[in-house]
């Protein structure tokens, strides 16, 4: 069994406009030491999936069903419907998270040292001096110069990239087996993004942890992930090893997404031509169609045997078209 197995996860938010199906039957697994990227646009359900796993969604607002089993030592723990107290034992200890905006994600009133020490203390019954030493060790590891002095500083005294390093140090203080990184570099400049991605790669190598990388940036994914799940309208629409996905996308949405990115590496002459955009808008999560949610924007549906009407009426299953490469599409095989 894998380190974490998510099976048929559903997250629904009842609203006055209707039921929002934010996550609609998501199934995936991640192994130790692996980096799994979850790619999607805003509203695709990539963030909600992970907040649901971590029990960070308000129980009053969200309806969660399905299963997510994580290995904890020798025992298997079902995360969905886990009691609050037990979930807290896992959060920050076995699974840690970092977020998009490192400024607003750190508490402005406490020194970074206090915040990291607190993260260590809550899961370890040790003297505060031990936690402090551990905090300095981690700050050092993530590349904060002069860590034993800087530990007293407050978040606003750091630059964006340094704050994200602090967040990473805080997440890793209890040596988690899984790190969930939710758009960790989106708020950062490209040169700083490169620093942070390099750091995450090195830390993973050293600590052998699994990483779930949530992002909208297919460029970041290409250099960082082992496996990719592409999400659209609450569903995984394609799942493949990273090289397979880029070389041979099987789902029209992935195909369109890759084609719509302006590429810097393309040679002269090509850059002048129009970008091949995906027409239309992502669907509303309240009135999802019975069939494939991408049909209204799909340019391949007429090539499906049975025609576009088949795509509109029946939801394709996530099928293994090539070994290890799954896609949710009625199109036969790799014919994009």
């Amino acid at each position, binding site marked *: 069994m894998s380190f974490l197995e998510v099976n048929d996860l559903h997250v629904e938010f009842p609203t006055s406009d209707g039921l929002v199906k934010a996550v609609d039957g998501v199934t995936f697994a991640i192994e130790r030491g692996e980096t799994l990227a979850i790619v999607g646009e805003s509203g695709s359900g990539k963030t909600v999936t992970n907040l649901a796993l971590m029990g960070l969604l308000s129980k009053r607002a969200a309806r969660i069903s399905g299963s997510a089993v994580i290995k904890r030592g020798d025992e298997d723990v079902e995360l969905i419907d886990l009691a609050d107290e037990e979930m807290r034992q896992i959060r920050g200890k076995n699974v840690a998270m970092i977020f998009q905006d490192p400024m607003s994600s750190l508490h402005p009133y406490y020194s970074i040292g206090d915040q990291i020490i607190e993260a260590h203390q809550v899961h370890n019954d040790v003297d505060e001096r031990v936690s402090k030493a551990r905090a300095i060790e981690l700050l050092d590891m993530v590349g904060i110069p002069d860590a034993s002095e800087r530990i007293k500083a407050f978040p606003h005294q750091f630059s964006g990239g340094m704050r994200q390093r602090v967040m990473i140090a805080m997440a890793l203080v209890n040596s988690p087996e899984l790190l969930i990184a939710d758009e960790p570099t989106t708020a950062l400049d490209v040169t700083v993004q490169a620093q942070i991605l390099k750091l995450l790669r090195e830390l993973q190598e050293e600590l052998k942890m699994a990483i779930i990388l949530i992002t909208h940036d297919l460029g970041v994914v290409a250099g960082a992930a082992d496996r990719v799940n592409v999400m659209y309208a609450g569903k995984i629409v394609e799942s493949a090893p990273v090289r397979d996905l880029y070389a041979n996308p099987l789902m029209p949405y992935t195909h369109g997404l890759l084609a719509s990115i302006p590429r810097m590496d393309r040679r002269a002459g090509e850059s002048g031509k*129009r970008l091949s955009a995906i027409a239309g808008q992502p669907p509303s999560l309240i009135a999802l169609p019975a069939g494939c949610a991408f049909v209204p924007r799909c340019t391949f549906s007429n090539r499906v045997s049975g025609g576009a009407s088949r795509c509109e009426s029946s939801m394709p299953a996530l099928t293994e078209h090539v070994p290890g490469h799954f896609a949710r599409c009625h199109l036969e095989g790799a014919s994009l």
Partner: protein
Amino acid sequence: MSEEPILEVSNLQKFFPITSNSIFARVKGENKAVNGISFTLRRGETLGLVGESGCGKSTAGRTILKLYEPTSGAIRFNGEEITNYSTRKMKPLRTKMQIIFQDPYSSLNPRHSVGEIIGAAFTIHGLASIGGDGATGSSGRSATKRLVQDLMERVGLNPEHYNRYPHEFSGGQRQRIGIARALALKPEFIVCDEPVSALDVSIQAQVVNLLDDLKDDFGLSYLFIAHDLSVVQHISDRVAVMYLGKIVELAPTEEIYQRPHHPYTKALLSAIPIPDPVLESSREQIVLSGDLPSPANPPTGCVFNTRCWKAQPRCFSEEPVLQVVDKSEVACHYPE
């Protein structure tokens, strides 16, 4: 594109005072957001202005439109020096110079309908008479409505949505509203200030394509400000790279992406992740160390000397000026 310049900027500076927090505000220093930039924009050309946050690119765009009062330097628009024009003298020129903002959420008044937002330009500048009637009376109003609906159609919005409010539109559609508003007065020059950064990837391509089409149809010249170098590459004829309030390199697009001469340009380009796992793994990346220095206290000599891997003593004492290297202009003593 003609050789005739539409915009000439020479040695433009914009400093913001840094005041201490007391009743008698004391100027403690100056944030040198734009610290002496010069460039020319030709009629029909798109000049990309790129750099990381804090480099002064947005301030430059707004100062050129006189939304900020320039500290020193000169701005010539259509040969007319507008540097010291009053608000009143600027008003007739405002129809010719427009801006499209980054955030399509905060830049549209939520209490005005789309028709009112786009049509306001006609009313403010008393131009509803374009339709043949005065700005008042029902015939004037219907003329305005027709003009607005034509524009909406042109930017890819449904003209029947004339009476809808901004919150009823998605991010991409809102950006189209912003574009229609900018186009309403038939401008010659538009500052596009990060027009696609807030949009999802699949929507970005739509808006970039639209901007590209409109440029030809309306005979526009763009100053295209962005941090995303891939988008800039796609749409620009020439690109200027800014760092800490200065232009460090200015070159034709092909040239700058194929043969970057300034070390910063080189590092910036190499930091951009390419959506291709095979290329990514083999590519050599220059990861810059450290952070951007404070624009209130820029380094003496070359502004990039604190992070440059090839800095020599001369770089710390003598400020490099833009000089011609091949087809580029580079501000570096030791260009690549």
